[in-house]
């Protein structure tokens, strides 16, 4: 009996903390989402059935932020996968300075997200930035405080800058696990680079690629810090992604019931995606 309990006792501490951090807040958020509860008005919470969810479906701000978030995530995922694959092949090559290059590639992953926001704010500012200056010499007017499209593209560039290294590292590991004998056989048969990419690399790395696509997609959907620092969601609503919309609704309007309803929907979209990811992993294991 005691032997059967041991594994449970060992996970008990970690489990309890995660319970407190995840399950209890989730249940509490669900409970709150059934109420009209504004912390500014000071009125006691009023039970409202599923009204918050109904309002949410009709709220153009929220719908637009989800649509914007999905568009952003799809674009940044595609860019990061293509670039990441290229960098992975580059890192797999044998050249002088390879180790140093790997260190450089890792740097963006170790920097606080909010600092990445301020870093790019320094470079993109219409007053002092190098990027507007550089583009001006090319005849392009670049101002993220007035052009929504430019702000959107800038957040894409930042996200790609930040996360392509992760894609590259994962795909490098996948690349390294391809048996050398297969590549040599293809060499003997006189396969071209494109043929090797199409018939060896991509099929053998397909699971890692799929996996990294899912990871990247989920992470970009959650983006907050960098964009909050850079644009605060503006100009207008052009970079108002889901987390930004949620944060603004909660901390500007203090509309806790409604905020909780959005949180529930947002969390379940992500949990559904991570469930798919988990299934993908299980397929790979078998």
């Amino acid at each position: 009996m005691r032997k059967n309990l041991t594994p449970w006792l060992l996970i008990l501490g970690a489990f309890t903390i995660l319970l407190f951090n995840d399950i209890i807040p989730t249940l509490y958020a669900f409970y709150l989402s059934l109420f009209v509860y504004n912390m500014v008005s000071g009125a006691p919470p009023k039970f409202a059935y599923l009204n918050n969810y109904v309002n949410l479906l009709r709220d153009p701000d929220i719908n637009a932020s989800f649509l914007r978030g999905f568009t952003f995530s799809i674009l940044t995922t595609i860019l990061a996968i293509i670039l990441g694959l290229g960098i992975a092949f580059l890192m797999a090559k044998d050249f002088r300075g390879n180790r140093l290059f790997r260190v450089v590639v890792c740097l963006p992953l170790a920097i606080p997200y909010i600092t990445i926001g301020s870093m790019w704010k320094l470079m993109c500012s219409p007053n002092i930035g190098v990027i507007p200056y550089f583009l001006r010499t090319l005849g392009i007017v670049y101002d993220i405080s007035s052009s929504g499209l430019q702000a959107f593209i800038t957040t894409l560039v930042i996200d790609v800058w930040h996360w392509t290294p992760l894609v590259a590292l994962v795909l490098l590991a996948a690349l390294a696990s391809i048996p050398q004998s297969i590549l040599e056989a293809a060499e003997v048969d006189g396969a071209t680079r494109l043929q090797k990419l199409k018939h060896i690399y991509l099929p053998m790395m397909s699971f890692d690629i799929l996996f990294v696509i899912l990871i990247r997609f989920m992470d970009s959907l959650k983006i907050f810090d960098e964009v909050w620092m850079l644009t605060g969601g503006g100009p207008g609503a052009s970079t108002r992604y889901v987390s930004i919309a949620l944060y603004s609704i909660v901390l500007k309007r203090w509309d806790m019931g409604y905020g909780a309803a959005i949180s529930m929907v947002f969390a379940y979209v992500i949990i559904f995606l991570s469930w798919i990811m988990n299934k993908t992993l299980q397929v790979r294991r078998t």
Partner: protein
Amino acid sequence: MKLASLSSLLTYLAVILISLAILFPIYWTIITSLKSLTDIFSMPPVLIPSKIEPLNYYRPFVMEGYTKLLINSLIASIGNIIVVIPLSTLAAYSISRYRFFGADTFQFFALTCRMAPPAAFIVPYYIMFRTIGLYDTPAALVIVYCIFNIPFALWIIKSGFDSIPREIEESALVDGASLTTRLYKISVPLCAPSIAAAAILTFLFSWNEYLFASVLTGFHARTITTGLTAFVTEVGIRWGEMAAVSTVCMLPGILLVLFLQKYIVSGLALGGVKA
């Protein structure tokens, strides 16, 4: 021969371009933190400052109390390690060594904790920590950071335990060693590199965090990352100070990558991936 040298030339070209693209924003931030106001605003932008301006650091850290924010960040990060590492080590040992009912569920549960969007937790966290009186204390951050650090440390340490041959422990079991003895005398010491990597990255993730810190602290427990937004004011942005505090914020991460490259690199990759 000619073709080979052309290909290696292209390789170097790509490596240099990518390195520049990665390093330039970091360089620009550091260099801006050392510039005087005239240099910051001068057009064309100044690539190398004419003189070094220490005031960008002096003002926030000496005059405006940012040192306290640094200390708060340290307290929250180290406090989090103290909670995360022992609990994760035990849990990792459990799922690495035993097959038991609920092990897979527990792992999936940990994965969802890691993946859950932080913004979705600000409403319940804010009210919960207000209610239990931990709002604006380092304890709130120590607890909250577990949500992403425990799953992460769990996976890193578990893969460490997985790589230790079971035979070593089994021979100790034959000798009659108890679970506690096996853990502290054999498995944990053998797993030390993984545990150390997990501890370092736990520190880094806590140090780097912004969203929860901005919601759960107000004045006393504010961390260095939340101090960064204060430079964006109604009347303008204090660029020099913002660059200086940004530089300090990213220092631990950059130093860790440079000096502990081997562990950190694989760990950072795992951080986003391992499941």
